[in-house]
Each structure stands twice: as C-alpha cells, then as structure tokens.
C-alpha cells in the first residue's frame, strides 16, 4: 500500500487570501499545497479593475493582481493543484482531505474558498444562463458590442461592472432594488460620468427574464414605489447582487458555520475543528475586501505556523469557544 501523502498545510482555495498565506508559509519552509477548483485569484481575477488595493497608484486589473500573487507564491515553493476538495475529515492530529486527486492528509488546513455571486432565483435566469444571463462581465461582455444590457445590483461590483460594460454596450439599465446605491461614494461619482450610457432605476425589483427564440429580449420588474410592473428591453442581463460563501463542501464536516454558511472562527482564525483555520471572504465577519483577505491570509499563516510548532511539541490548543464568533 502506498504511503499517505502528508503536507504541513493544505489551503483550500487560491484567491488573494490563500495566495498571501502561501507566500508567508512557504517563506517559513512550511510545506504548502493549494487546491483551486475555479480560478486562481478567485473573484478578484474576474474583476475588471481594482483601485483600492494598496501599492498600485493607478490601480491594477484583477487578472494582473491575481497573476502576480500566484507567481509570488510559486516563487517561494507553493504548489497549486487544479482540483477540488470535497470533504475535510478530522483524524485528530491529522486532517484527511477528500479531493478529486484522491485522499490527502495535512497537519493543518486553511479554508480560504471565498465567495461567489448570488443568483436572483427568478424565472428565466437558469434557462438563459450563458445565453443572455451572466455573472462575469470580463468574460462575457465582449458578446454585447452595440447591444443593450441590464445590470442588476447596487453595490460596488454592480456599479464597477456596469461601467466596464460601457466599453461594449450602447446602453445599460442598472436595476437597484433599494432606494439608494450601496456602492462606495467614489464609485457613485464615477457612475455619474457614465450617465449618458447608464440609466439607474432605484426601487426596482427584477422579477423575470423573458426571451424569444432562445434569446433574451426583456426584463420584467416592479417599481416598488408605485407598484407598477415595468418592462425593459435588453439583449442580456448581468447579475451582481451580493455574495454567497463557498462552504457547501463543509456541509458534512464538523466545522461550525453561521446562519448564512460562513465559517466561524476564534480570534486566532481557527475553526471549531482544531488545526483547521479559515480566512478571507468565507470567514464569518469578513469585510469582503481584497486587501482584508490578503491581510487575513498573512494572519492565518502566522497562526498556522504557531499551531504547527505546538503540534511538533505535542501541545495542541483547542479553538477558543469564548472568542468563537461571527466578527
């Protein structure tokens, strides 16, 4: 029988949080493997432009930032595998990870799977997915040259991606459920500069996506101030209405999640399973910022280093229930 494959730390995810953590752990000679089932760089990689990550005076594209973090982590010896972790099983001092590459063992684990865009859950959304309904402007925007687009959402992602889509579209209708935008002030000021191309509809729900002959033709919504139904003609719909944590793979584990599925940790970023840490957008209380995710990745790496040192000495401190919280 083959020997078990054992690593000091396995990081689940390879976004800014895990890549930063990997830069720190590999520089400490901690044997580090990352598993990524999606895109290296996570949601940051599919973000057109990042203006608030420190150190880049003129901003940086999400793809370039992700590539730089990836290359930096690889430079110090991090191994990134393109595969999926489907379960984490606590075997005491060792954690068994069930993966698409088979079972792998680790002395410690960092869950940094981030989050993904929420779906609207309305009629037509599934039916027209990738044929008129999209969640990635940088991937699919190019198909809407000289066409009309609806963008749903009023937060930073919706505003930023709507502005990106002006490169292609003749007109964009931005549907915002609330009576004000949640996007940052600076993005709202930027949005003003695009008012000839982007029409903002506040107090407007998105109720149905309608098409004909396999092509999206309109969005049906409701003006919540008057209760009137509205119809907006469009060729495509891009949805950015918030984030959901990628924690479905933890459903059968004993790792404690909060009511919306985010991972609870103590003040050392350790989860309810000793030796398993969580950081970044997946952690309860996360601020959903790339800079914060990177910072938490660095903190998690230092906590993991201490855990491994204690592990070597046979001193294992359990997670602290007193500090286990959603903040």
């Amino acid at each position, binding site marked *: 029988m083959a020997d078990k494959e054992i690593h000091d730390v396995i990081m689940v995810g390879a976004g800014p949080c895990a890549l930063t953590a990997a830069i720190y752990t590999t520089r400490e000679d901690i044997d580090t493997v990352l598993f990524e*089932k*999606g*895109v*290296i*760089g996570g949601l940051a*990689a*599919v973000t*057109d432009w990042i203006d608030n990550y420190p150190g880049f005076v003129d901003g940086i*594209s*999400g*793809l370039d930032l*992700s*590539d730089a973090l990836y290359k930096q982590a690889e430079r110090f010896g991090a191994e990134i595998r*393109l*595969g*999926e972790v489907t379960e984490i099983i606590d075997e005491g001092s060792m954690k068994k990870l069930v993966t*698409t590459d088979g079972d792998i063992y680790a002395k410690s684990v960092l869950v940094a799977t981030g989050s993904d865009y929420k779906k609207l859950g309305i009629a037509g959304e599934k039916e027209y997915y*990738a*044929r*008129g309904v*999209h969640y*990635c402007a*940088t*991937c*699919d*925007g*190019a*198909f*809407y*040259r000289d066409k009309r687009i609806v963008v749903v959402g009023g937060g930073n992602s919706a505003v930023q991606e709507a502005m990106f889509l002006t490169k292609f579209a003749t007109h964009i209708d931005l549907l915002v459920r609330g009576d004000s935008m949640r996007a940052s002030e600076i993005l709202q000021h930027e949005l003003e500069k695009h008012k000839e191309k982007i029409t903002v509809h506040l107090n407007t729900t998105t109720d149905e996506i309608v098409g004909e002959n396999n092509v999206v033709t309109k969005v049906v919504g409701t003006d919540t101030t008057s209760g009137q139904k509205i119809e907006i003609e469009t060729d*495509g719909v891009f949805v950015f209405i918030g984030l959901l944590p990628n924690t479905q793979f933890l459903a059968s584990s004993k790792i404690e999640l909060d009511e919306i599925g985010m991972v609870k940790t103590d003040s050392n970023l350790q989860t309810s399973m000793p030796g398993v840490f969580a950081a970044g957008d997946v952690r309860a209380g996360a601020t959903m910022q790339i800079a914060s995710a990177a910072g938490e990745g660095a903190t998690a790496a230092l906590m993991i280093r201490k855990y491994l040192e204690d592990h070597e000495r046979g001193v294992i401190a359990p997670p602290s229930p007193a500090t286990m919280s959603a903040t």
Partner: protein
Amino acid sequence: MVKNITIFTTNTCAYCVMVKKWLGAKGFAYEEVNLDTNPERQKEAFELSGALSVPVTVITKEDDSKEIVVGYNLAKLAPAVG
C-alpha cells in the same frame, strides 16, 4: 485521441487563462482565437457552443468529431481530452 484544440478567449477572461493553464499542464497544444482581436469570429464561437460566453474550448478528435466545453469546467474538460 485528440487531433487539435481551439480555445475562444477574450483579453479579460480569467476562466480562459485557467483553461489554457490546465491544458498546458496536461501537455496539450492549442490554438487560441481571441475574440477581442478577432470579433468577426464571435458568431462562430456562438454557433459552436450556443453560449454568449468564453472560454469555449473545441476539442477535435482523430475521427473529426468535436466536443465543445463552455467555461472552465474540469468535470467536462478532463473526459473530453482523455
């Protein structure tokens, strides 16, 4: 057996980077059609895939049959090139 692979991409598509990275790691050569620089080929990508989305990976087998994979979907890509 794979005869050739074509990937339709755009400049800003992170999933396209992942498909290229994955195929490269598996030792497959591919032709890339960038739809930002070749917008006239968008229609071809749509007709092949039925999707207004990239990446579209077209795997042509030795018998000239084709498998089309939309997105970075390892569950479909791996058997398609296997």
